[in-house]
């Protein structure tokens, strides 16, 4: 029983100290779970790899993984709830006030600066994912490092979504299938 609460509170702490998301919190997670011997450093690296290859955020995935390993499905549920509950409360409060003050001229002015900035942030994350897909490692010249199979899938994907308007989820399934096809054949 005690370990269930420990799982909840450790991951609540991790959730609360994560601002801006991404990989910034990997050091914090690593420290919290290796110091408790919940996982070795190799284990953490495994979870990072698994998180990249499965849907869902790293913080949630590591909570589920460690919780399940420690105390089965119930442990997984406690740890996962730990990540979610504190920010759920905060976001609901923020959303409530945001809805109230959204049309205030000052809020609108601030938002007029925030909207383009968020587009920049999304573009940045697009760039990083694209770089990882097209040229994961730079070896030799730029041109040599480009993974042309990924570029072909990317172009097919763009055509699919703009011209054929296929659903994003279907797109992911098709991309995965093309990945298996291209990378095993060529």
């Amino acid at each position, binding site marked *: 029983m005690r370990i269930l609460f420990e799982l909840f509170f450790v991951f609540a702490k991790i959730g609360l100290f994560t601002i801006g998301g991404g990989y910034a919190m990997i050091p914090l997670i690593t420290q919290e779970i290796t110091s408790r011997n919940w996982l070795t450093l190799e284990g953490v690296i495994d979870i990072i790899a698994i998180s990249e290859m499965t849907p869902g955020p790293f913080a949630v995935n590591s909570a589920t993984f460690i919780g399940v*390993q420690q105390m089965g499905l119930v442990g997984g549920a406690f740890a996962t709830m730990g990540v979610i509950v504190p920010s759920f409360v905060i976001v609901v409060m923020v959303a409530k006030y945001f809805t109230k003050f959204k049309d205030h001229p000052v809020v609108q002015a601030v938002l007029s600066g925030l909207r383009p900035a968020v587009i920049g942030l999304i573009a940045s994350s697009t760039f990083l994912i694209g770089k990882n897909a097209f040229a994961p490692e730079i070896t030799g010249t730029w041109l040599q490092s480009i993974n042309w199979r990924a570029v072909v899938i990317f172009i097919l994907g*763009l055509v699919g979504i703009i011209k054929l308007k296929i659903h994003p989820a279907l797109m992911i399934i098709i991309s995965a299938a093309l990945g298996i096809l291209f990378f095993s054949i060529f």
Partner: protein
Amino acid sequence: MNRTLLKKALKLFTVFFRIGAFTFGGGFAMIPYIENEIVEKNHWIESDEILDIFAVVQSVPGVIAVNSSTFVGYRVAGLLGAFAATIGVVLPSYIIIAVIALLLYNFKDYPYVAEAFYGIQAGVTALMVHVVIKLGKKGAKNLFGLGLAAASFLALTVFGAPAIMILLVSGVLGLIAMNIRRIKKNNEERS
């Protein structure tokens, strides 16, 4: 309890369950789905509002993908909606990771997993390029917006500035820009 609210919450749950199951590559990668399901199909929120939500969510503690689901859920159907969207978005990864932890620890070494993953990454890039163009047309219309978007992109990509700092500065710039516009307008009216 209101029947339509309950229906909306159920719908939110299934929509966010799908989003949770197919979002590879971090919080922003879910925006194409939100555009598709929440804005275009169900007209629950406006396209511009996605940017507002992601701006706010970046500035509070927690996981972006989860927080933005909570926020969208709240906007659509209040507390019940927030709850439905949050559980919906987390459940798929809970199931997948639980299966991996219990049964397939060597998941990443299975044949075809790596190949499928390469394909998915390329596909996600296409989805995101599309959404950046789409949102860019609405959210970065004038020179101020375009410049700010480009500056934020560079600040994060090249200089690795923390996202929250970028947002803070941009918010202040938005305020300054509004005041400049107001002063200009007042001067024109006076002359």
